[in-house]
């Protein structure tokens, strides 16, 4: 998907802008609400220029009130609009969990009426310490009523946000902070990416890595190193955690019988457990050995870069995991 004219390609953040712009053209009910969006365009420039292009009605600068931000979006969505609530860092969603988990997620079930609401935030481990590096995706994926997107590249950001903005359901849209500036091709205005459809990043012969978000990059690096040792590993990028592409997962297990599931959330209780457990139950006979999981250690993320890096799966850990399953 990367081309030789890479410099002309937008960044991951700009891909978000692009998708949102096109969708506002189609649907004037869309607006974005969050802190420091109008001038600054958000902490990651993810909505830069949109207020200037479409008017202030489409971009609202909010007080620091995460609970009210989400309930503003929620009430407006119930009224028929299609808000994007930009929570900046996903860490701050912890101040709006009732609004997300008790309200937004459950309203359709209770009242039979749609909640077309996107909650966007930047996620994942980088610098900034324990309060800015939470990986909360498994909390949201566990919550009935929520869809969860975790794009790993510009193309997917744009295609997935466009789909989210045409969906009547609440979507948690998680963008990884280490990918913000990474450039890549993006689709045109008709390129929508369905939720629940994984992407094969790279086909392989010997084993599969199932992953998402920034860990896709780690997997790609591992794949290169493994190739030099004659191990050809397939990489599957889930793109959304709910709906989850169980077909792609089952197919990988059935084809290889050797599977690594990886992400950078604390491994204990992460979504990789759901993937491994369900795939094992459904395809036990196909497995040459157990699905191997890798993830982060059970610890908060330190502000120290070395410690922060050490917490999450390294390329080496990924290589070791693949070798382990290949050796079955």
């Amino acid at each position, binding site marked *: 998907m990367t081309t030789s004219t890479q410099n002309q390609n937008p960044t991951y953040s700009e891909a978000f802008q692009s998708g949102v712009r096109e969708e506002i053209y189609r649907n004037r*009910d869309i*607006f974005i609400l969050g802190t420091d969006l109008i001038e600054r365009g958000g902490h990651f420039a993810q909505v830069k220029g949109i207020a200037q292009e479409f008017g202030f*009605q489409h971009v*609202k600068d*909010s*007080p620091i*009130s995460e*609970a*009210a931000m*989400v*309930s*503003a*979006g*929620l*009430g*407006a*969505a*119930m*009224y*028929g*609009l299609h808000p994007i609530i930009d929570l900046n860092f996903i860490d701050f969603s912890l101040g709006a969990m*009732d*609004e997300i988990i*008790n*309200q937004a997620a459950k*309203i*359709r*079930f*209770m*009242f*039979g*009426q*749609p909640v077309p609401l996107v909650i966007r935030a930047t996620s994942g481990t980088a610098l900034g310490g324990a309060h800015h590096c939470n990986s909360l995706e498994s909390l949201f994926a566990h919550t*009935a*009523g929520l*869809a969860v997107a975790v794009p790993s590249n510009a193309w997917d950001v744009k295609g997935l946000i466009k*789909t989210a903005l045409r*969906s*009547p*359901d609440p*979507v948690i849209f998680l963008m990884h902070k280490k990918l913000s500036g990474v450039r890549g091709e993006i689709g045109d205005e008709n390129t929508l990416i*369905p*939720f*629940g*459809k994984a992407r094969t990043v790279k086909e392989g012969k010997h084993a599969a890595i199932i992953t998402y978000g920034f860990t896709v990059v780690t997997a790609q690096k591992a794949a290169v190193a493994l190739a030099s040792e004659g191990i050809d590993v397939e990489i599957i990028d889930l793109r*959304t955690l*709910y*709906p989850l592409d169980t077909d792609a997962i089952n197919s990988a297990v059935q084809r290889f019988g050797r599977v690594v599931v990886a992400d950078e959330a604390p491994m204990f209780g992460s979504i990789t457990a759901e993937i491994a457990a369900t795939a094992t139950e459904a395809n036990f006979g196909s497995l040459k050995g157990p699905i191997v999981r890798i993830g982060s250690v059970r610890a908060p993320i330190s502000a120290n870069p070395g410690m922060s890096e050490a917490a999450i799966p390294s390329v080496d850990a990924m290589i070791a995991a693949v070798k382990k399953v290949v050796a079955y």
Partner: protein
Amino acid sequence: MSNLSKEWAHSSLRGMMLIREFEETADKLSLRGKIPGGIHNSSGQEAVAVGVLSALDPLDVIATTHRSHHHTLAKGFSAREVMAELFTKSTGVSRGRGGSMHLGDFHRGHFGGNGIVGAGVGIAMGAALGIQQRGDAKVSVGFVGDGGVNTGRTWEAINMAVIWKLPLIVIIDNNQYAVETFVDRVTGGGDIAKRGEGFGLPSYTINGQDVVEVNEYTAKARQRALAGEGPTIINALTYRYYGHNVGEKGQYRTQDEILDWKTNRDPIDLFIARATSEGLITDSEVAALRDDVKKEVEDAVDFAEKSPQPDLNSILVDVDSGLLGGK
């Protein structure tokens, strides 16, 4: 001569009587095990509900609390669909899934009761934002209890409504107790309206037992909201006759206190007295109304009893739209 219309007086009185009859009946049914999970009885608080809702347009939005039968009936929902919901029957307003705390129908401007204290104000604020974004000539009303004014989410929402001049009215259905906790014991400053003023919006403490006063303040707040001037808080002092949840008694308030409110400040009695003395209604008309609401509630119970349970196979229906590929 009264400044009230006969029509308004009759309909408001009937509204309050319907709520009272409904709640008294539901209480007994709940004690008899007919209503799963119990109810939060609003007997005594009728004037707040009817005073507010009679000042709104049918398409205005409300979002409310765990104690919301009165708001829902006053919004014009039928006793049948509310009672059936309490019974968690499929004919209930939330198809039996919500129960007593989760009555609602967005198409009719009812954005739901809520199991979470304070949440209704946030939702109402969001609806007010939706109204503003669309440029509609409507207002949104968020109900909250005296206990709910100590949740942070309530003040976050109010602040947002103030800075954006949202067409929001916050009604504090102030029955002075949160479960067993007296409002003054937990409310710093003790003056909820003053809190509101600190957040920059007009805030009034009013007599919530006087349906006319509640109606007038709400109408004024509605005008302000429609004029684009922003939100208002109305702190309506009232009283609940029953325990927090059905069957609960507790020692946190005296029998004398309860009796005093019932005898001297009952919203229905007070309004009957006024309406009668102002020649708006006769004793026999009052009696007829009483009969009428009794029949309506009897019919509602009958309807609820006979209604079917929700289909257990529908349990995964409407978790999400399915359009994103869930299941």
